[in-house]
């Protein structure tokens, strides 16, 4: 690595040097080493490929590179061969030799490792896969290409160019204005225009010049992982965004940076730590960055597993070493936030958008997305948004699309629809503060305002697809309990109200629903919404409200008919063995924890309903689909 850059000319020269030496590389084997693929054994592959290349003396012609998350985690471990972009999925150690010998050396494709869609088509190139082809990857563009632990990789693809463009060159006010005009809105949930926030923070009185620049990497939405993926795959893009922010908001003062990251993301913490260290060594953090006069550094703070700590004031309390209780917002954090200093908090994905906007310009950026932000930054949703497409969908993973893309396009064209021939029922967006939308909302363009109008919200980008085997009452019950557990307990309405909601929903799911329960849920919900201090309580009933609004019939069936049509609520279902499908293999009888299944070998078995606890193990272990729920 080079010595610290004294100015932007140094950075430019170093990059040119890098590009010159790199052109000699011919082939690259990129192995995804994100959390998902590591869980499927990617690290062993990285070692294996290194060894195999070395053993064959191919080090000069072939580079083995570990990258961050490619977003198609379900098919991991993923291996992409450059420059052909051949994508191999679910690769195992035993496949390594074949990949090297047949593909790298022989130029053939190993058919069995290719991605195959539901109709049986195989795809060779990564960019031909429907999953990738229909996306617009700007923020995630480099994830599959660069080694996140190498700042050289980031510099080689143009990293820190945006920083060099503004630091010491554009007036800080001008940079704030650019961000405002770009229409960039916060990706952490609220959709607040980032430029407006920056300008207010810059304008706030601050005698000693200490302003805090914070990155919210708490990613509390359970079922969302785009922030994790950005930090693991391209940590420098977040750091670059934050340094630009420090210049725009804090120069000529003494801005200081924090990343508040959740403890459940050890790999992201590690990668970010490495990236910060490298940036410091190159003089991109520290004193007099690129000779601009800006002094700025970033610290990492790890969270402790509390959803509410993603809320801005709770997050700041937590950095100060107190429990994460939100406070009233009549004092804005941009004026008095962390340690009572002007504080600017943005989400990981928001920060990662910043270098892109600076690099490519407002005109380009506002060309993507919905609405018109030329007069009012609230006038539309610009740029792309990354969604974590999960649940009952064929292709699960990270999907980056322009704002305004329809739910249908995301779920069907990119996601490949619902697996197992089942029927779509709902899609949940916005995490625990969001809502569930039914099939007739599938053509809704996904942007901040359209989702809110439909009773859900953008949130941080979790998108959970549900099919006919998902019970909507159970989903509402799940989120209500989640929020009751995560409520910090400060407001009575939120702490006690959510608990009561949870109890009523428990009763309904247990077959003990009473007439009037639905109205009771609604009136209690209104109280919780209006009497709670922070957005956790104020939006806590969204999952409940939206399911009551769109799936009321399912609630009615639970309460009046004592039926769960999805076959989820245990008290309302029973398991049965289909005599014509059962082969009498006896495996269910062996695995049943209650010895509730009996039958002779090779003869149909039966379940004793009085003993059955409806754990569903028999259905899981049956190889002949002979166990059904009713």
């Amino acid at each position: 690595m080079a010595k610290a850059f004294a100015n932007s000319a140094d950075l430019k020269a170093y990059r040119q040097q890098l590009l010159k030496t790199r052109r000699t590389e011919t082939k690259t084997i990129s192995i995804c080493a994100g959390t998902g693929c590591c869980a499927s054994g990617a690290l062993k592959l990285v070692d294996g490929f290194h060894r195999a290349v070395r053993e064959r003396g191919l080090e000069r012609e072939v580079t083995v590179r570990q990258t961050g998350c490619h977003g198609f985690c379900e098919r991991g471990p993923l291996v992409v061969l450059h420059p052909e972009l051949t994508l191999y999925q679910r690769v195992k150690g035993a496949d390594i030799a074949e990949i090297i010998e047949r593909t790298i050396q022989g130029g053939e494709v190993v058919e069995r490792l290719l991605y195959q869609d539901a109709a049986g088509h195989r795809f060779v190139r990564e960019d031909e896969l429907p999953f990738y082809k229909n996306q617009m990857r700007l923020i995630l563009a480099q994830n599959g290409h660069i080694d996140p632990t190498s700042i050289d990789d980031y510099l080689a693809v143009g990293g820190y160019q945006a920083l060099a463009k503004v630091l010491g060159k554009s007036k800080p006010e001008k940079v704030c204005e650019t961000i405002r005009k770009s229409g960039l809105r916060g990706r952490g949930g609220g959709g607040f225009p980032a430029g407006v926030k920056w300008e207010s923070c810059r304008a706030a009185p601050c005698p000693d010049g200490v302003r805090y620049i914070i990155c919210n990497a708490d990613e509390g939405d359970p079922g969302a992982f785009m922030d994790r993926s950005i930090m693991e795959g391209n940590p420098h893009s977040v750091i670059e965004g934050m340094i630009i922010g420090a210049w725009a908001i804090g120069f000529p003062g003494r801005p200081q940076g924090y990343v508040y990251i959740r403890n459940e993301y050890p790999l992201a913490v590690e990668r970010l730590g490495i990236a910060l260290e490298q940036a410091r060594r190159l003089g991109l953090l520290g004193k007099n960055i690129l000779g601009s006069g800006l002094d700025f550094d970033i610290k990492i703070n790890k969270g402790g597993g509390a959803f509410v700590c993603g809320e801005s004031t709770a997050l700041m309390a937590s950095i100060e070493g107190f429990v994460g209780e939100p406070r009233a917002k009549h004092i804005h954090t941009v004026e008095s936030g962390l340690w009572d200093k002007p504080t600017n908090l943005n989400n990981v994905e928001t920060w990662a958008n910043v270098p892109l906007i600076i690099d490519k310009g407002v005109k380009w950026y506002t060309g993507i997305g919905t609405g018109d932000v030329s007069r009012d930054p609230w006038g539309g949703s610009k740029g792309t948004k990354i969604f974590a497409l999960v649940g009952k969908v064929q292709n699960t993973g990270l999907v980056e699309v322009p704002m305004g893309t329809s739910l249908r396009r995301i779920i069907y064209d990119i996601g490949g629809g619902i697996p197992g021939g089942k029927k779509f029922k709902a899609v949940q967006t916005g995490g625990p503060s969001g809502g569930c939308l039914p099939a007739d909302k599938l053509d809704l363009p996904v942007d901040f305002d359209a989702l809110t109008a439909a009773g859900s919200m953008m949130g941080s980008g979790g998108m959970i697809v549900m099919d006919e085997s998902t019970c909507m009452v159970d989903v509402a019950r799940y989120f209500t309990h989640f929020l009751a557990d995560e409520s910090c307990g400060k407001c009575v309405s939120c702490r006690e109200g959510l608990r009561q909601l949870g109890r009523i929903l428990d009763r309904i799911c247990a077959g003990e629903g009473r007439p009037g329960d639905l109205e009771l849920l609604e009136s209690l919900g209104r109280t919780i919404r209006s009497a709670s201090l922070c957005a956790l309580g104020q939006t806590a009933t969204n999952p409940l409200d939206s399911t009551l609004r769109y799936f009321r019939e399912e609630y009615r069936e639970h309460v009046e008919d004592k039926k769960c049509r999805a076959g989820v609520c245990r008290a309302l279902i029973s398991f049965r063995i289909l005599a014509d499908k059962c082969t009498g293999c006896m495996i269910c009888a062996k695995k049943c924890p209650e010895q509730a299944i009996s039958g002779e070998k090779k003869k149909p078995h039966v379940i004793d309903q009085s003993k059955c606890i409806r754990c569903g193990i028999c259905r899981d272990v049956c190889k002949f689909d002979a166990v059904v729920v009713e």
Partner: protein
Amino acid sequence: MESKRLQEIVADHGKDPAQLLAILQDIQQEENYLPKETLKELARELGVPLARIYSLATFFSSFSLEPRGKHICTVCLGTACHVRGAPRLVDQVERDFAIKAGETTADRQLTLETVNCVGACALGPLVILDGEYHGNMNTAKLGRVLGSLKKE
């Protein structure tokens, strides 16, 4: 935890009460839980009320005030894992080992914990046994993964 080690950890964090969360994380990392005596000593070291330390230790779900088991089984209960059947996995461990989520078996072999998403949602339902991720779990697979523990 030995006093000397505690002092080192505290010194690593500049003896700064604002670093309490990080200090507690370091203690738990080494001790597997937060021992009462250590917390009392920490309060004296930092000059903060013990109540403030307890409020943090009980607020954040990643801390345990009880010694945890030799093995730790963490079931993800995030939304993506939930809709793919994660609650049944919790039930299964609770039933097989006669403990509730958050508890440890009497022989200190196993602690069952739950977590709200670890960011590997595409592989849900997800179970982490001693730091190793097991994706696309069902009751049959979990039975196999935990089977080795039962025999120990």
